[in-house]
């Protein structure tokens, strides 16, 4: 015997199971296999001496081997973003260059930047990105960790 309540639940659950994978949404991408090629990036003064323009920037570079698991979105169109959440850190600006699979760009804490738009052709996307990191030398309190992740928006 099927009651109206039961039917409603059933429809709702089936809808959840059946529709979610094909609807537009934002998902966090599994980038657990990505890793920096250096354990720590030492930042050095951009200008060895203090400047008239008050340039107190520290800068450094790091290379990241990116490996994104895109299997859940195979054969679909998507936009992949690099995300650097606000982490209560000193002012930091990170720019990067790529080998062409992802877009180059620039990011600061609290931002989400597009790095790919188009069809997801394969289950794994591998890329090497060269980060350039700049921080305010007057406000960098020793060691600091920047936690990045990737998100995908599907159509």
């Amino acid at each position: 015997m099927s009651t109206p309540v039961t039917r409603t639940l059933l429809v709702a659950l089936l809808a959840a199971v059946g529709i979610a994978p094909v609807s537009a949404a934002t998902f966090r991408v599994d980038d657990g296999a990505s890793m920096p090629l250096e354990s720590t990036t030492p930042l050095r003064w951009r200008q060895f001496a203090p400047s008239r323009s008050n340039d107190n920037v520290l800068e450094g570079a790091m290379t990241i081997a990116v490996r994104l698991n895109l299997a859940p979105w195979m054969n679909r169109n998507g936009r992949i973003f690099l995300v650097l959440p606000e982490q209560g850190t000193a002012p930091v600006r990170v720019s990067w260059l790529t080998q062409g699979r992802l877009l180059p760009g620039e990011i600061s804490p609290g931002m989400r930047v597009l790095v790919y738009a188009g069809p997801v052709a394969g289950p794994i996307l591998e890329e090497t990105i060269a980060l350039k990191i700049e921080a305010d030398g007057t406000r960098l309190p020793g060691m600091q960790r920047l936690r990045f992740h990737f998100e995908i928006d599907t159509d």
Partner: protein
Amino acid sequence: MPATSRRSSAAVGGSLLVALLVCARPAGAFTVTITAANPRTLYLQVGVGSFTGIYNSGGTPGSNATVNTVSVTVPAAQVGSGTAQTMTTNSTASNSFYDNYAFCNAPAQLYIGGFYRSTTNTGAATLTATSPASLVNGGGDTIPFTQIRWTSSGNGDTGAQPFPAGTFVGGVQTIGTISRNQWAESCHTFSYINSNFVAAGTYTGRVTYTLSSP
């Protein structure tokens, strides 16, 4: 019982959905660790110094072992008269490595400048001078170092000097400070106070300047 069967299916479906969502969570974001390397940098120049280029166009300070001399010859008739005798230097450093501006007038003045770089908010760097009690000649006669004083200025400067006028104390004394991430410079003009009647001779003594960070 179709209805019961559907309820069972729905319950299983819900449980599976939850399980799949848990499994689909990413393994984790990547982390970049940054740290300030060489967070403290000090540069001190007393007299001549070395700099590759000019700092505001990306120059880099170097090391210079030169010890400049400040001297005066007191005419015999003036010895002990109390009339101060202006001293001159053998320094050729007039232009500031800050911006190549002709800040001092060598050899009349001695350039004293430097900078302090630090990522920590822990005060200023301190410039001290250590002078012996006396200048000494070959015969062992002495002149107290307190007989030497200096004025402080800089071409184009209108405000207070970071390293102001003073008199040697014959010991360790503070000459001035350099705030964090600042460049500071002054030009010192030395004079011999000449209030003592002393034996003839060449009197010498060395002053060592030290810039210390917190």
